[in-house]
């Protein structure tokens, strides 16, 4: 991709050992160290949210529910949703993998605003601590969406604290998005035109636009919710002159684009992995790039499809239903382009590629079932059932989390300078894929048969599918714990990683693993488009 010379950089200390005091980590402005801080934080939140999910699945093993109190069950699934959505899914890929590789991919020394980057981590942590405090002193029972009047008048749980936690972490999102936008505009290496940028950067750019434009609406919405609860100012509660559907409009104006905040970076990760492990240029590069942008734009036009049975007018529902189909087009184009890239490629089934393959299949199922719930008539039957839970998890967990794990394995040698054990990596990818499907495929059936979500107990007819789902969750949990074990092991015992273990083409692979503190000894110059691999005959000979 470029004519960079990095030998001099190899003489520098890596960013991991450049300074080793605790203060050097907690006050660092190095994007790579901040990425590590974020990675540790989101991993912690992922397992907290996972424990709550395990408790939910445990409860549903028997029809009457294993947890004695339905109230406790409500607080558990809210804990799962709040932590997973706001403190893992939304930030995960941009703040960890994105923070680490964006400047490296651009050939820059850091993000445009390094101090803002550190502040955004502190905001995230402050928001997270407030949230955990709210959840552990009694929790919230409103669900992760905080719908009024449930959240304003009908419960005694710690809504205000929980909302403040999300509110504060929102500023972290805005700061990160702003930083990425300015960095991508201003700090591209010489020769790196927009069409020479890796797709991951296009994805993060589109994500950042959503973060910057949509998150303030969420902040205002949550602020109004808090004001209403504390000062009894009528905004959303009909008892004091408010409109609860107004809350849903404002909430989903952010939260539907937020679905793409979560999944677009995942698209970017997959677009990096597939060409490398197929040794082929990304099929339809420009289409994939512009599809990210168009998804970001269209995502703002479809929020009303979450509100078909809320009391929203039928006319609005019809329009939102039609608009919702539009967002499927660029998503489908991406899937076709990934398959087109694999076609006649020299595919290597290393762990990142296994995750990428899993992503394509699971996201496609998640996306297609999204069309079902976007259809007005079908949604009246399916909404608030386990069908929606399954659809959401196929997109978010089967899609985004799988992509996150794929990206983590792909860039792990670059981040840590160590190779993970490949056999364990492949085993974990397979276990996660199997566990995920056993957990969530039965939920499509449960939902279609009419089992509502967020219920503490259920009719005995649904037990077989619920037991199957809980059994799958056990497999899934084992799959997620495996990488925690072998990746930690690899930090100490893993084989030393070369600069470019996968034979990839991006600039991040042209600096040592782990990179030096300043990333590059000399400013890279980009001369070729991304994903320029050797001619097929050379690849064939090598394989």
């Amino acid at each position: 991709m470029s004519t960079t010379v990095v030998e001099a950089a190899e003489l520098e200390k890596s960013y991991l050992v450049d300074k080793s005091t605790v203060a050097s980590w907690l006050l660092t402005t190095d994007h790579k160290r901040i990425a590590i801080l974020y990675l540790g934080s989101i991993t912690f939140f992922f397992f907290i949210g996972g424990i709550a999910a395990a408790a939910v699945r445990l409860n549903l093993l028997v029809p009457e529910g294993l947890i004695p109190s339905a109230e406790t069950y409500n607080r558990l699934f809210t804990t799962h949703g709040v932590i997973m959505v706001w403190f893992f899914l939304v930030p995960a890929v941009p703040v960890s993998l994105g923070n680490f590789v964006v400047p490296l991919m651009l050939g820059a020394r850091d993000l445009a605003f390094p101090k803002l980057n550190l502040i955004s981590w502190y905001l995230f942590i402050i928001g997270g601590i407030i949230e955990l405090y709210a959840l552990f002193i009694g929790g919230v029972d409103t669900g992760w969406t905080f719908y009024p009047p449930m959240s304003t008048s009908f419960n005694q749980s710690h809504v205000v604290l929980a909302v403040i936690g999300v509110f504060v972490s929102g500023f972290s999102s805005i700061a990160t998005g702003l930083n990425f936008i300015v960095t991508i505009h201003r700090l591209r290496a010489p020769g790196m035109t927009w069409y020479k940028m890796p797709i991951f950067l296009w994805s993060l750019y589109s994500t950042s636009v959503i973060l910057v434009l949509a998150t303030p609406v969420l902040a205002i919405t949550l602020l109004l919710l808090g004001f209403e609860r504390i000062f009894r100012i009528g905004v959303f509660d009909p008892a004091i002159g408010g409109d609860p559907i107004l809350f849903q409009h404002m909430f989903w104006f952010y939260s539907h684009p937020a679905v793409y905040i979560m999944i677009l970076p995942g698209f970017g990760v997959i677009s990096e992995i597939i060409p490398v492990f197929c040794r082929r240029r990304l099929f339809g590069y420009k289409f994939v790039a512009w599809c990210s942008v168009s998804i970001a734009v269209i995502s703002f036009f479809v929020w009303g499809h979450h509100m078909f049975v809320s009391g929203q007018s039928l006319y609005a529902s019809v329009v939102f239903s039609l608009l919702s189909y539009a967002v499927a087009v660029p998503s489908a184009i991406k899937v076709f382009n990934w398959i087109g890239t694999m076609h006649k490629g020299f595919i290597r089934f290393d762990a990142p590629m296994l995750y990428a393959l899993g992503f394509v299949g699971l996201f496609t199922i998640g996306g297609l079932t999204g069309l079902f719930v976007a259809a007005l008539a079908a949604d009246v039957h399916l909404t608030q059932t386990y069908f929606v839970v399954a659809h959401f998890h196929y997109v978010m967990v089967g899609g985004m989390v799988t992509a996150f794990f794929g990206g983590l394995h792909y860039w792990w040698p670059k981040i840590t300078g160590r190779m993970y054990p490949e056999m364990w990596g492949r085993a974990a990818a397979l276990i996660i894929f199997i566990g995920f499907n056993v957990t969530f495929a039965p939920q499509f059936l449960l939902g279609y048969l009419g089992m509502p979500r967020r219920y503490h107990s259920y009719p005995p007819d649904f037990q077989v599918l619920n037991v199957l789902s809980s059994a799958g969750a056990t497999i899934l949990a084992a799959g997620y714990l495996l990488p925690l074990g072998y990746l930690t092991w690899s930090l100490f015992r893993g084989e030393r990683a070369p600069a470019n273990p996968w034979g990839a083409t991006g600039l991040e692979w042209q600096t040592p693993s782990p990179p030096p503190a300043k990333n590059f000894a000399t400013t890279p110059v980009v001369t070729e488009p991304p994903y320029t691999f050797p001619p097929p005959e050379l690849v064939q000979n090598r394989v």
Partner: protein
Amino acid sequence: MPPRFPRLLIAWVLLLVLLGVEFGVAMLSFAPWLRVLILLPAMAMAAIVGIVFMEIGRAPVVARGFATAGLFWLLVLLGLGSMDPLTRTYYHTTVEHPE
């Protein structure tokens, strides 16, 4: 103290005053055709943010593009969002709260 600090301070105070005006105006009853006036203080606030804080007059093209996109997004929120209340026939009624 930065040279532009007094200007920024005045703009900030003005924003707070306009917020108060907006809050007060929201309490008043207007004839339906005059309700658009409620938007005026908010529009003035947006203008102050754009002109004084963002210095949009001197900003590069990309920054102006983002500022315009912000207004476009607001238009989407208000435009698509008003589609529902303008055509809705059912409104929630007041409910009794549990003590």
